[in-house]
């Protein structure tokens, strides 16, 4: 009797104190901080935390955990963050296969998910969800831009990507806009490190351009081997194949490569300049495209948190949708499927002093959405 009374008093007092304190906004960041893909996750985390730090908002707490690029681990972490950490928003996943394992179940439990990178077609069309936002792009976008660019002067393209969902989305996106002839469409193994066989086919194919989507270490290996092969065909690809996380390791072999992106370090707008200066000051390196996307995701959450309580999901969503931020990318707004509408550019890898970086060449798309938004009914 005494015991249960004590327990009841304790429970009551806890409940009361819980009511009395203002609940801070809690964000769970699941990203890749170990293994081969760690560079991407670290840039994601650092870009995100830069925006949080700059805001000076003490009410926001971010819990970060490493998914080691493993879907099953990401699911476990998400469950833990939702149930025991009681986060309000999840974010940070780099890879589409991990996102597909986490996001649908998180939004089904009433949590918001703001993606900093992964943007599979499956979540942009019919299966779009009011609680799922993407601050980066839709997976196909950068490939579409390269297809459009290839129309200018390339008649026969050799296209290549790893054999997994994002790889297929990539070549589909490229072909959606490219009108010339496809010399060959090659799918390589995920994590493949030797491309001699494919390079030999490129040489024999008679193509006048090569489009590759090989993120991370795969792109480094390909570019180095391609440079040694004596094959002289221009190479192009989506921005993340030639982003700041891999350029130093590719070295001069990347010079002259054309890539598509929503941001490059030479963007001439105040938000971009501030972001670049702050990031370099904080982390002493150039940010990649992943850092920008995560920075914007954090800015979006901060903008909404300033005006609405996250517990009031509808109000918070409405504020997020306004996208009231100064993005380093310039124009940024949300489409009907809560994926970005933004400008996409073509960049070229150049040497700025000793540092390899991307320089903007031209704007390919203005206010570009994605092909799946029309199927999204919210």
């Amino acid at each position, binding site marked *: 009797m005494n015991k249960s009374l004590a327990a009841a008093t304790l429970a009551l007092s806890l409940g009361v104190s819980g009511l009395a304190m203002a609940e801070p906004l809690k964000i769970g960041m699941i990203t890749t*901080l*170990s*293994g*081969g893909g*760690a*560079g991407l996750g*670290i840039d994601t985390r650092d870009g995100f935390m830069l925006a949080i730090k700059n805001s000076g908002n003490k009410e926001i707490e971010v819990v970060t955990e490493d998914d080691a690029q493993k879907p099953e681990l990401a699911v476990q972490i998400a469950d833990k963050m939702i149930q025991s950490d009681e986060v309000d928003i999840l974010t940070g996943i780099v890879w589409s296969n991990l996102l597909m394992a986490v996001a649908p179940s998180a939004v089904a439990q009433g949590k918001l998910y703001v993606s900093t990178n992964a943007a599979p077609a499956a979540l942009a069309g019919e299966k779009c969800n009011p609680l799922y936002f993407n601050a980066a792009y839709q997976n196909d976008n950068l490939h579409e831009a390269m297809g459009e660019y290839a129309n200018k002067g390339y008649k026969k393209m050799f296209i290549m990507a790893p*054999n997994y969902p994002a790889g*297929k989305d990539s*070549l589909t996106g490229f072909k959606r806009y490219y009108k010339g002839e*496809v010399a*060959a*469409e*090659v*799918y*390589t*193994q995920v*994590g493949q*490190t*030797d491309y*001699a*066989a*494919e390079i*030999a*086919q490129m*040489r*024999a194919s008679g193509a006048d351009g090569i489009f590759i989507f090989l993120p*991370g*270490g795969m792109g*480094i*290996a390909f570019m*180095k*081997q391609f440079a*040694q*092969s*004596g094959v002289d065909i221009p190479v192009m690809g989506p921005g993340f194949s030639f982003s700041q*996380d*891999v350029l*130093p*390791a*590719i*070295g001069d*072999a990347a010079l002259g490569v054309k890539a598509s992106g929503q941001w490059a370090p030479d963007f001439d707008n105040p938000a971009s300049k501030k972001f670049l200066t702050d990031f370099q000051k904080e982390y002493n390196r150039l940010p990649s495209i992943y850092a920008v996307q995560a920075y914007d995701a954090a800015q979006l959450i901060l903008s909404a948190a300033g005006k609405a309580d996250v517990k009031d999901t509808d109000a918070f969503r409405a504020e997020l949708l306004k996208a009231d931020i100064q993005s380093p990318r310039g124009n940024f707004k949300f489409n009907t499927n809560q994926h970005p509408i933004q400008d996409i550019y073509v960049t070229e890898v150049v040497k700025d002093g000793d540092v390899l970086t991307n320089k903007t060449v031209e704007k390919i798309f203005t206010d570009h959405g994605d092909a799946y938004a029309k199927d999204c009914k919210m």
Partner: protein
Amino acid sequence: MTLALALEQLLNGLQLGVMLFLMAAGLTLIFGVMGLINLAHGSLYMVGAFACAAVAAATGSFWIGLVASLIAAAAAGALVELLVIRRLYDRDHLDQVLATFALILIFSEGTRWLFGSFPLYLDIPPILGGAVMLPGGLQYPVYRLAIIAAGALVAFGLYVLISRTRLGMRIRAGESDREMIGALGVDIRTLYTVVFALGAALAGLAGAMVGALQSVQVGMGEPVLILAFVVIVIGGIGSIKGALFGALLVGVTDTMGRFLLPQLLALFVPPAQAGMIGGAAASMLIYIVMALILAVKPRGLFPAAHA
């Protein structure tokens, strides 16, 4: 498809095979002599690549880096043998797998702690840069030819070492009967450390040579490790000769499969699908070959004399 292209692909297969041999030789040597399954072999490959990249960046010379990779991998191997592996010889294989898996994690995170998460830059030496014209109008990268030559040299060196020297005699004796060679007064503990360091140096050499072609990053060793295990299972566990033939078989099968299967399928289905299905089938090909070989010869192509 021209003859030159087929020939080029054959050379590519040979080069991949040689690289796998360098990995597999150390692995199979260690298993043959000590009966140890060393999952951390891929980490020693990574140590070699990182040592080469770091020293090459500091000195500006790939060659000094290459020497450093040998020394670093051998030293890491010897150290690991003295501290950890030595306690595992009498344990069963599950304990060995667990302990060496732990070593993978320690090596990976240790490397990340030292060098950071971003891939390092390592380029091939200028003297081996570019491509040469081979007879038949075939252009081929010099560096890949150099890898084939280096692999052939290592294979020959191992053959001489094992069949013609005193150390080799002890290694062979250790393979056939561990207790007996100990009883005959050979310092078996030192022999084990030497063999382990030798295997590690071979992995480090492979890591450095391949690192210049690919990306030097944490976790680079594990995909190669899986292939190396396929190689030694096909070749016969414990057999250097088996490792050589297994490696060449896997290298050529993998390369030719990636090249020919999509083209073959393109005769029947649209090119986009042929690429996708062919690519998937090609990635399974070496495992299918392995299954077929094991069905016919359960102990591999060249089973070691004992066991």
